[in-house]
């Protein structure tokens, strides 16, 4: 007994954390990451599951699945949407204590055991379940509008299109209305007309009847032609929403062969309205609050560093990713909204952030060193060049993954250079799009463009390439919310 308790205490000293954040959980995710606990890569490796704010049905059930997948000792933390930095730290501390608490963990283990999975209960059509991004089992049920529509009609008829995105009739007003009304529905982009073959449903199984079927409630994989023209097994693998280094709340349903993605459908949409954390200064300024340019630039630089951190982590350069995130955290340290002060002190949030913050000069120098290091990496350039080519009309997203990395590095550098700008921020939200920030109407927003581009870019990409492409676009799903669409 004594030994187990002792080991538990030591195991709890640096527990790996898996963060579940929806589009509006960005602020809380940043606070959790700033605590510096190691990030778990999969449920099996995680000790603490942190839900950031209210999750919505879909994300919540995904989180529950991940929780069921986590081996004990384990702890779960649900952060309220308005938690302050101090509260987040306290909640994590509590989780650590509970991890070291022998009796609590034994009780949890006993309960966990009784609710274990038994063959025949679940009927998930993917052959390989229990991926770290554990799909909610209901994702493939007919109740799901998107897949239901595809499965039954095999076409576009039943699915919700984004009118603007497909160039169909209806002007801006109609498009607004539509996306407002259906912001919660699953929108998908790209003009694919292929139907979803649900495995076992028997689309393409000629010659193998004897081997197909259902095992323990799990259908065998279906098949389809691969890129060399061979009929090979296909897997339906959802990427996200609970996955390390992945855009908050994004789900991409994929059909994969081996590790090559054949079809990808982006599932976005969130019932609750909210504001993008990264757009906050501009939205506040548009509402007439006094905001300085410096405060907005600080947020912009941090946003780019957040995206770069994800990309570098996915690119297998943990050291550089850590630097990017550390710089981001240092920038945001003086961001009082992040720390939760707004909620304590009323609404005078974004004022006065331009005051000289101790350490900002260091950030400038450290950022320059970081940017130089990333730009100079030959291996990184070798690995990223030519991936995810986007044509030139999408200014900020144009080029390949490497171009986007360089553009982000430049944008973050410029923003960091303007931290001391005391001029008040004036915003014209209707104006043309920029790299970050809420400009443009719903159709022009860079996140919308990125989400629309994704399926086309992901088709034919290997999983590793797909992760890099997604990380290089890094759409902010909160921008797609109904409220954001109306500006």
């Amino acid at each position: 007994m004594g030994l187990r308790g002792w080991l538990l205490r030591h195991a709890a000293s640096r527990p790996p954390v898996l963060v579940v954040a929806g589009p509006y959980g960005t602020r809380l995710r940043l606070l959790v990451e700033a605590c510096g606990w190691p990030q778990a890569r999969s449920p099996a490796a995680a000790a603490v599951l942190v839900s950031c704010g209210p999750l919505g049905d879909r994300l919540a059930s995904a989180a529950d699945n991940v929780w069921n997948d986590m081996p004990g000792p384990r702890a779960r933390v649900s952060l309220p949407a308005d938690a302050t930095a101090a509260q987040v730290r306290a909640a994590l501390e509590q989780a650590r204590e509970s991890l070291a608490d022998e009796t609590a963990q034994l009780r949890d283990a006993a309960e966990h055991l009784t609710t274990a999975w038994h063959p025949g209960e679940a009927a998930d059509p993917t052959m390989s379940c229990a991926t770290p991004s554990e799909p909610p089992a209901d994702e493939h049920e007919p109740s799901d509008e998107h897949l239901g529509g595809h499965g039954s009609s095999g076409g576009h008829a039943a699915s919700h299109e984004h009118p603007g995105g497909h160039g169909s009739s209806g002007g801006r007003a109609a498009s607004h209305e539509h996306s407002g009304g259906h912001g919660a529905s699953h929108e998908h982009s790209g003009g694919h007309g292929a139907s979803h073959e649900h495995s076992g449903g028997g689309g393409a199984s000629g010659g193998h009847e004897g081997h197909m079927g259902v095992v323990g409630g799990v259908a065998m994989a279906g098949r389809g032609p691969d890129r060399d023209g061979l009929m090979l097994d296909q897997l339906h693998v959802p990427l996200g929403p609970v996955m390390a280094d992945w855009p908050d709340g994004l789900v991409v349903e994929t059909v994969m062969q081996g590790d090559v993605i054949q079809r990808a459908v982006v599932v976005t949409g969130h019932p609750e309205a909210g504001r993008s954390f990264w757009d906050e200064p501009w939205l506040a300024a548009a509402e007439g609050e006094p905001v300085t340019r410096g405060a907005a630039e600080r947020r912009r630089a941090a946003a780019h560093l957040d995206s770069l951190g994800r990309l570098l982590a996915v690119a297998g350069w943990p050291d550089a990713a850590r630097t990017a995130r550390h710089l981001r955290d240092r920038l945001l340290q003086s961001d009082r909204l992040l720390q939760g002060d707004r909620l304590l002190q009323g609404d005078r949030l974004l004022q006065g952030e331009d005051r000289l913050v101790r350490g900002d000069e260091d950030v400038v120098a450290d950022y320059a060193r970081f940017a130089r290091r990333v730009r100079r990496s030959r291996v990184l350039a070798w690995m990223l060049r030519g991936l995810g080519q986007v044509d030139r009309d999408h200014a900020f997203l144009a080029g390949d993954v490497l171009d986007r990395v360089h553009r982000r590095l430049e944008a973050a550098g410029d923003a960091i250079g303007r931290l001391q700008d005391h001029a008040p921020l004036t915003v014209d939200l209707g104006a043309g799009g920029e790299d970050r920030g809420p400009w443009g109407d719903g159709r022009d927003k860079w996140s919308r463009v990125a989400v629309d581009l994704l399926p086309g870019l992901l088709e034919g990409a290997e999983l590793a390439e797909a992760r890099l492409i997604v990380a290089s676009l890094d759409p902010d799903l909160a921008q797609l919310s109904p409220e954001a669409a109306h500006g």
Partner: protein
Amino acid sequence: MGEVAGLMGGLGVLVAAVALSERNWAGVARGLVVQRRRTLLPDLLLIRLGVVTLPVVAVLAALVLPVGERAVLDLGVGIVWFNAMEVGAWAAVWLAGWGANSVFPLVGGYRFVAQGLAYELPHMFALITVALGAGSLRFGEVVAAQRGLWFVVWMPVAFLVYVISALAMAFWGPMGEPGGAGIAGGVTAELSGPDRLVFLAGRYALLVVAAAAAVPLFLGGGAGPWLPAWAWTAVKTVAVLALFAGIGRRVPAVRMDRFMTFAWMVLIPLSLLQLLVVGIVVM
């Protein structure tokens, strides 16, 4: 017997040091207390087999390495033995990846096999170059052949290839894609508790063994002034590990779809050229 204990002790200390340098003590403790977790319809037998095989092949590969004067198992074909055991990691990683019946570990397992096909041929050529230079497959004689000049000096390409393949066989650092962040930890994604601990320990052991093998192969073995041979072996092994760590910090992960071309178009011709040069010199 004393040699076995010494080798295992040294290996254990180094593996522990490498693991802890990544601030993994909490991870070790977790490995001892965390429950095992099961995926849907896993092949438990194969998972366990893969998990156990990894540290076993690392130790078997270490047997032929001379610690100080001589090796525990002084095989006449030590280099081939080392190569065979290190290829055993392919089987181990693939088994662990396949057995979980889950997408990301499976992709990780595949990636490791692809990685193996990319690195193994240049790796073999590098080893053959060393054997040719020494005129023997026995590690002891390879060390003896370096009395005058270390092989790293006149076989730089072979050494470079060896370093790349050492990182690749332990799927660590830039060659760590089979267990990469992009696929949620790849082959390790579904491992938990003692399985994870043993598997990761095996991986670190393989990294340490690969570093230790570079010492007799390229760095003159235990040769050096003042200190005894075993101490020099240890010092050089740590130096190679430090080199690995430096590479791990500076270089992002290498994807096989690009590296495969590089390996076959650049590394193999270069290592053949090196082989030719060494062959001419020896003649």
